């Protein structure tokens, strides 16, 4: 059994009190998103939305690493309370398909398959989002899979959401400069998964090259563009090779940025192909992880 006293709340109990929304209404966001949506759709003719830079013509049926075509699908749209406390309840819209191939993906069947779920319907989802906001949802979270590969649809959705809604872009941080330009000034919060602390683990577990450079470039950009929250899912056997360098880099380069260390890893999807990922993290690893968090001084939130 994992000791609940290892919770980050015991590391710094006042963190949540400082975690309130700094929301500023995005005047004109709807029209800006609509304009960017058109530009993003044009990008599909030679797709460079993510850092794989496949360059394929998705409008003509070509497919890149993500396998996504021109039309987006959604596999989940519901109010959830498992994200950061300052965001919940969040109305979370999850697009099918992703540009990474993380063996431990908790939604692998949908994230690896852009044909999963239902056809995207911006108008209907927008209406649903407004209803959930009226019922108490604190934010609208757009995620995947990876929403970057469906940037035209994501921007179309934003174009029908209230300008004063708190919008969260939950991403794997593998976007290209093209995608960043289209996303500039749109979201209130970038919630970025910083999954791997080195390129070797990223390549082995997610099939991605040049991970660290791309991820860090996106994090630096996101910190300038919006509020940034970084997540790290602690993987068993990867405390020293992944969490340690992630925490060290954040502390040195983005001091004060909120970090959510997620300790609930479970061996989902194809985790069992990797011996160290066949079980949850053990208590000693969790303790080591919290020790690293304290030593580096990262700004933990829950």
């Amino acid at each position, binding site marked *: *059994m994992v000791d609940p006293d290892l919770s980050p709340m015991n590391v710094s109990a006042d963190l949540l009190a400082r975690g309130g929304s700094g929301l500023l209404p995005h005047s004109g966001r709807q029209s800006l998103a609509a304009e960017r949506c058109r530009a993003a759709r044009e990008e599909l003719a030679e797709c460079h939305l993510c850092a794989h830079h496949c360059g394929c013509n998705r409008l003509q049926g070509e497919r890149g690493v993500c396998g996504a075509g021109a039309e987006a699908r959604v596999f989940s749209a519901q109010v959830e309370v498992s994200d950061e406390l300052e965001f*919940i309840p969040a109305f979370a819209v999850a697009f099918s398909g992703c540009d990474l191939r993380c063996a431990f993906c*908790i939604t692998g069947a949908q994230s690896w398959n852009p044909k999963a779920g239902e056809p995207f319907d911006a108008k209907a989802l927008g209406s649903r989002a407004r209803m959930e906001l009226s019922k108490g949802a604190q934010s609208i979270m757009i995620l995947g899979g990876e929403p970057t590969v469906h940037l035209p649809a994501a921007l179309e959705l934003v174009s029908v959401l209230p300008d004063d809604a708190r919008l969260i872009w939950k991403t794997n941080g593998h976007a290209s400069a093209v995608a960043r330009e289209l996303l500039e000034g749109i979201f209130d919060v970038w919630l970025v998964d910083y999954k791997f602390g080195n390129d070797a683990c990223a390549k082995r577990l997610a099939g991605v090259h040049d991970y660290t450079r791309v991820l860090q470039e996106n994090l630096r950009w996101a910190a300038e563009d919006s509020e940034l929250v970084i997540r790290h899912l602690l993987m068993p056997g990867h405390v020293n090779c992944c969490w340690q360098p992630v925490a060290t880099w954040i502390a040195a380069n983005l001091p004060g940025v909120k970090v959510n260390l997620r300790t*609930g890893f479970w061996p989902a999807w194809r985790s069992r192909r990797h011996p160290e990922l066949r079980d*949850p993290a053990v208590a000693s690893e969790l303790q080591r992880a919290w020790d690293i968090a304290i030593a580096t001084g990262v700004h933990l939130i829950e």
Partner: protein
Amino acid sequence: MNLVGASEQMTEVLIMSDGTVYVHNLTPAMAVALSALNPQDARISARIPQPARDSLGDKSTIDTPPFLPL
């Protein structure tokens, strides 16, 4: 499936042999249910939206393992 109409919601729960409970895509309704199993677990009770929390009232304590969000 009817995503727009909210008729279908889903939370994944993994219960380990030692009783530890892992949860993904936690919905408010499931948060209430899990909290009822262990009202002393602050990490799960903190995730119950206020209206639902108000309606819960006092619950008897059951000795159950911790909740660990993914």
